[in-house]
């Protein structure tokens, strides 16, 4: 089937400002949007620029706006979209070229919440014990692939670049609710600041955007609740 794909293009070496360019591709309904982008890049216009790697929704490289929604290009099939498709870079980060945005602020936010196990010495032999129930408690937020779909779907992020954003909170949640971790206090103090979890207005865009099906808003709410319950401590 023939699809018309409008792509927002910007090459800083040539363009003064972004502009749309239209391409026509012959694709199957069960082709991925990434396949269509590859068809354009490989056969029509090698200057088209986007990140991609695993092509099956696990590496988090190819988040972009597809018909106005943040999706992974490798996880959306053409048949879901209709014959006219619009593709734009994620909103909220500086565009470097075409779909490639500056991910540094995103990774800096992630790093700011101490995304690693904080705990005492490891046992001298064997593993730390954790019950299946305790393991299940934070299962949902271990799925995050750091694609930035949620953070760049959040209207608060668009206007407040200080806000740590949903992805960072999801990753804080992953540790705060891990029974082995003792760093909840440090992380909650960070998330209790101006730029932290209270910026969230519960818009649910993040949950809608997550290609991994993580209940992002719920994770944020659980972090907020922890802060309320333990307010005295932090």
């Amino acid at each position, binding site marked *: 089937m023939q699809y018309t794909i409008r792509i927002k293009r910007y*090459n*800083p*070496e*040539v363009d003064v400002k972004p502009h749309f360019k239209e391409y026509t591709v012959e694709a199957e309904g*069960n082709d*991925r949007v990434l396949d269509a982008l590859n068809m354009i*890049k*490989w*056969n029509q*216009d*090698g*200057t088209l*620029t*986007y*990140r*991609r*790697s*695993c*092509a*099956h*929704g*696990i*590496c*988090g*490289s190819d988040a972009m706006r597809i018909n106005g929604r943040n999706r992974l290009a490798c*996880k959306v*099939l053409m048949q879901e979209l209709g014959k006219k498709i619009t593709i734009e870079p994620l909103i909220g980060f500086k565009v*470097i*070229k075409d779909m*490639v945005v500056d*991910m540094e602020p995103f*990774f800096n936010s992630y*790093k700011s919440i*101490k*995304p*690693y*196990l904080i*705990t005492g010495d*490891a*046992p001298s032999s*064997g*593993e*730390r*014990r*954790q*019950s*299946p129930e*305790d*393991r299940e408690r*934070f*299962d949902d937020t*271990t*799925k*995050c*692939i*750091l694609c930035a779909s949620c953070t760049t779907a959040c209207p608060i992020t668009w206007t407040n670049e200080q806000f740590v954003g949903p992805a960072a909170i999801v990753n804080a949640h992953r*540790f705060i609710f*891990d029974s*082995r*971790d003792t760093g909840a206090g440090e992380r909650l103090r960070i998330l209790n600041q101006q730029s932290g979890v209270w910026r969230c207005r519960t818009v649910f865009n993040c949950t809608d955007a997550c290609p991994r099906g993580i209940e992002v808003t719920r994770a944020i709410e659980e972090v907020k609740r922890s802060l309320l319950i333990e307010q005295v401590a932090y």
Partner: protein
Amino acid sequence: MAYHRFDAVIVGAGGAGLMAAIQLAGKANIAVVSKLYPPRSHTGAAQGGISAALGNTEEDHWQWHMFDTVKGGDYLVDQDAAEVLAREAIDAVLELEHMGLPFNRTPDGRIDQRRFGGHTRNFGEGPVRRACYAADRTGHMIIQTLYQQGIKHNVNFLDEHFLLDLLMSDDGSACGVVTMEIKTGEIHVIHAKTVLIASGGYGRVWKITSNALAGTGDGMAVAYRRGVPLMDMEFYQFHPTGLYKLGILLSEAARGEGGIVRNSEGEAFAARYAPTLKDLAPRDMMSRFIYQEVKEGRGIDGKDYVHMDLTHLPPEVIDAKLPDITDFARTYLGVEPKTELIPIQPTAHYAMGGVPTNIDAQVIRDEAGHVIPGLYAAGESACVSVHGANRLGTNSLVDLVVFGRRAGKHMLQAIQESELPPLPKDPEAFARAQVDALLTSTGGENIAELRAKMQEFMMDKVSVVRDNDGLISAKEDLAEVRRAYRHISLDDKGKVFNTDLLEAFELGCMIDCAEATIEGALARTESRGAHYRDDFQARDDANWLAHTMVYKGSGGLEMRKKPVVITEFQPKERKY
């Protein structure tokens, strides 16, 4: 041009590179270079598990793991290395848990373990639960956990830098790498006492592959061009259960949890070929069983695929233990695995071969084991050899953490004991010449067409079953692709994030990896593990109980043999 000086530069931020980096962090001045962001590395796509003889759910011993690894590799495994792998797997897995990796748990809170192909109790008696796992996203959790540790230890990451060249000092030791910063197009000379190649595999050489688009063998090719041999490249694993046409991996955990592969008659045919392990036979064998079924007309609808049947598994097992892969079947094929059969076919998955190393991950330059000072390799880009002729499921992740860790530890020692070797004259010249040639060529050949051509003939002639005529023909086809490669022209001549240029450079790397693969496959006139020759169907220990080493000499390719290290287990016929 930018110049940097480090104690160590690590190329690749997957499991092996990060594991090495964590050993060095805080103790040496290091840089980790990746053409992606580290958590995008292909380690993250590993699904089923990481084996270690913890014995958490039933009796197990590292000696059994070692034996399975040796037998699984059809006795081409270096047994000193397999011993290290199986012994140190236990500590390595516990170390991952201590770093925070969220493994699935047993009711008493230990790391849960499950079955996987080729892993057995008591030297082959029957399946054993050895694979530690985090649902079916074990690799994802490993890459996340190691990246998190990298952040914790303030590792210096040079993200989105593309490897262009390996620098060798005049005295023959490695002294750094040349990269291109993708965002700016600037060339960087990274001068270092030690270099670790941990850049992953090259599955993109084939049409149907489970590998990421980034899996283009850059590190192997760049080293090969500098005279470093590539070892055992003819051993390339085709995973039996890739999603039909897409090649996306459907984890062996599917079979580990009880999934059954069926032909067009609905027959669970693996039992006919491998009566003891049935569907848990190792991957090379399962892929050949499928090939044979298809050849004899029992592919589905007469086509080149069969079915994975999960419909008899309890839905809650599918949801809890195989959520991601069943999601792939739904998303990409529109198949509901709880009630429908999943179309599968063998998919190019893993390089057993690579840059040859000793058990400390030091790169060796010849069959006698002489090392190249300062140069290390680990993970899929390396060949220790722990996988021999066929890797067992889960052992890639074991390899990453065990030998990534050993690389880091040995590099630290080397850094403390050695001086920084001088750079060669014009260190960036070779890299720049290659880049300039690509940017200025106006020959009219198209990257994608050449790549697709190579992927087609590699799939037809250098995959699950091979023969002399096919390999000779593939060699000619590749020579033609290489000739045409000199005349490709790019649409994008710019500096900023030029992925057109990158793809062109990657194609050059893939051509070199394919060359070494074909050369090894042609030379090896026997069938062993993943290398099956229709014209030489038997294993030939008298002539071929040896590794191949291919060199890119100035006068053409050179082939040498390296003896296999045998300690505990004498080669026997490999039956399951």
